[in-house]
């Protein structure tokens, strides 16, 4: 590719986050660090799960928010990573760290295959194509009983000794989540990320400006798959079990809903969305067996009253207030 990417970069977007944002980030980080002191054992494992799914939701946000392509197959990419980690450690007896590396690699490669097939399309066709590709992965996992254990799934060998404790494991996951989040943030605010946003706004204009749009889409998809792979590998250690339900459509849908609930294109919305949905699942199911209905209703309400998502809505409100004052 001969296009010099930097040339199109307006200076404002390269600017470091403002002081106010930095202060807020520090507060959030301190809160995350202090969380285990406040919560009993089980809630900490919920918090861990939220972190893992936030990474998955961010990976979706890279595509949905920054190149305007909404994928419905990320559950499959995520789950393939989980499958590889557990197969490597439990069935082949390999080391967990190598397994996680292989899981992330497998997810990245799968994302590359998905990308080659899907980047030609956009809008609802992209949605359907990624959905179909995800279903293929699900079908393969379900049917190849010899490797994946079919419907029964694969059972892991347990976490390594120093991660068995919920609090230790939470900190370990936090230790991965923070740098991953920072890298994604850098990625979407890089010149490359700017091009991605350009593609989201107008593909034809970017093309006429001389950008290699398919290549950018491809790379964005692969990067997104890489991140989903990280989430999947972490989930393998967390859940210690994998079955076709991990790669099935509902996984893709719930991760996408997390991204949408938090706010597409806000990146940090992924954390808010994952927190909202996982907490809702856990709290509502204490009170009623009809918790999926409550969840559904909540989504409908969010779509009507805050289609920009929670963080998106908050930003709009904040901006309005600032303009007024």
């Amino acid at each position: 590719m001969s296009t010099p990417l930097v040339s199109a970069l307006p200076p404002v977007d390269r600017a470091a986050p403002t002081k106010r944002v930095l202060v807020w980030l520090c507060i959030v980080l301190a809160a995350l660090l202090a969380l285990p002191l406040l919560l009993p054992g089980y809630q900490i494992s919920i918090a861990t799960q939220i972190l893992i799914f936030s990474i998955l939701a961010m990976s979706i946000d890279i595509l949905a928010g920054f190149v305007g392509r909404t994928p419905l197959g990320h559950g499959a990419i995520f789950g393939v990573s989980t499958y590889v980690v557990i197969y490597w450690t439990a069935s082949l007896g390999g080391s967990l760290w190598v397994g996680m590396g292989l899981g992330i690699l497998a997810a990245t490669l799968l994302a590359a295959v998905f990308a080659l097939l899907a980047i030609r399309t956009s809008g609802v066709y992209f949605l359907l194509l990624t959905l179909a590709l995800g279903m293929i992965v699900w079908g393969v996992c379900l049917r190849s009983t010899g490797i994946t254990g079919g419907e029964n799934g694969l059972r892991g060998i347990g976490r390594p000794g120093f991660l068995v404790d919920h609090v230790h494991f939470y900190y370990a996951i936090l230790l991965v989540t923070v740098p991953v989040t920072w890298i994604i943030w850098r990625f979407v605010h890089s010149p490359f990320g700017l091009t991605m946003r350009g593609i989201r706004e107008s593909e034809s204009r970017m093309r006429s400006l001389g950008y290699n749009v398919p290549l950018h889409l491809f790379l964005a998809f692969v990067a997104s798959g890489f991140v989903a792979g990280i989430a999947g590998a972490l989930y393998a250690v967390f859940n210690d079990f994998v079955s076709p339900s991990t790669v099935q459509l509902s996984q893709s849908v719930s991760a996408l809903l997390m991204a949408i609930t938090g706010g597409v294109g806000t990146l940090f919305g992924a954390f808010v969305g994952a927190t909202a949905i996982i907490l809702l699942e856990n709290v509502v199911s204490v009170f009623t067996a009809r918790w999926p209905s409550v969840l559904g209703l909540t989504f409908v309400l969010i779509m009507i009253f805050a289609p920009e998502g929670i963080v998106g809505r908050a930003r709009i409100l904040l901006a309005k207030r600032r303009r007024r004052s």
Partner: protein
Amino acid sequence: MDRRRFLEITSLMLAGGTSALASAREAQAESAPIRIGLLAPLTGVVAAGGKEIVNGFTMFWDSIGNQVGGRKVEIIVEDDASNPDTALQKARRLVEQGKVDMLFGNLLANTGLAVANYVKGNGEPYFIPVIAADTLTQGGRIPNVIRAGGYTASQFSRPLADWALKQGYKKVATVSQDYTFGHEQCGGFAQTFTEGGGEILLQLWHPLNTSDFSPYLGQLSSLGVDAIFAMETGADSARLIQQYTNFGLKGQIPLLGAQNATDQSVIRTMGAECEGIVTSAQFAEGADLPATQAFVKAYSAKFGKIPSLYAFSHYVGAMWVAKAIETIGGKVDDRKLFLETVLKTDLPNSPLGKPVHFDAYGNPVYDVFIRKVVKNADGKYWNVPVDTYPQVSQFWKYDPATYMKQPAYSRDFQGIKKR
């Protein structure tokens, strides 16, 4: 209702409520209740079965006043949503937040396997009256996972194969759902049948939720087999039986089935098309045994239907564990003692009507009924025993150690003896 009457009733109820609370608190002071976590699929694809799990389970505890070994029993029901990831999450919540003394339940094999893997790490007692995955009480045995009231998938299809050979059937074809539970139930039949001199002409595997069985029935009808063995569950079973009749196979080729094929959950809404199908199980709701009939009557009176596999196995499982708790005087906190006692406990008087005990691997040894579907006096269809195989263990007539060396059943390995 006028205002005065409303006030009267409300104050009465409040007074009653507080005194009930007070007495509950007193009881708690004596000894804390035994907390049991029940995981059941109340939503998702098998929600109907999940409801019956709760019915059967709570019916038993109600029958003994929710009290055992001098302690109160508290049951906490959680919905596993027919999904292994949710099941795992709920199991974690019950154990880590709810501090339950034991877990019970789950319906789908994958949900049970996920929870079993979780309790493997923390030693929480877990009883699985429905989860039939062979590995859990064989090669992949976990000491604190016990199949109280349940069975391994291949356990009952073996006596059925033996019975089929005795009927003079020489050639059989199988049709089965294409997943592990199906591979295992079918494998038990295929292995015993071929080792006994029979021949499996064809094995058909169809995906779960097949709506049209005509391609499969077409192949089966022209084979010239003596009988067809069908491994089906739920709606698939109902559709297969229906279409078996529609295509005119009923009455021409005898239909045999694994336990679930003619479970009450399938045949309670069906008519004459299910009549005459032969299956095998540890329970036959139409058995002329006093304990069985007393249970069926009580359950039908309470819930308006004849109990299914899900209901009776959880009733039996609860009864079994309750007997063990009684033996150790409610000391379930001593897990080692509790688990050992459960394994040593025999159950002579359960609704199964025959005494049962555990083998060395935590799986029950049953008298297995060969059952036929017939119409009862109320015009409903149910399973009535036509033959009994006493003391059938999960290993049939094999030596456990030798048996566990063979590969797990799958599409590719059905234990079929080559000739």
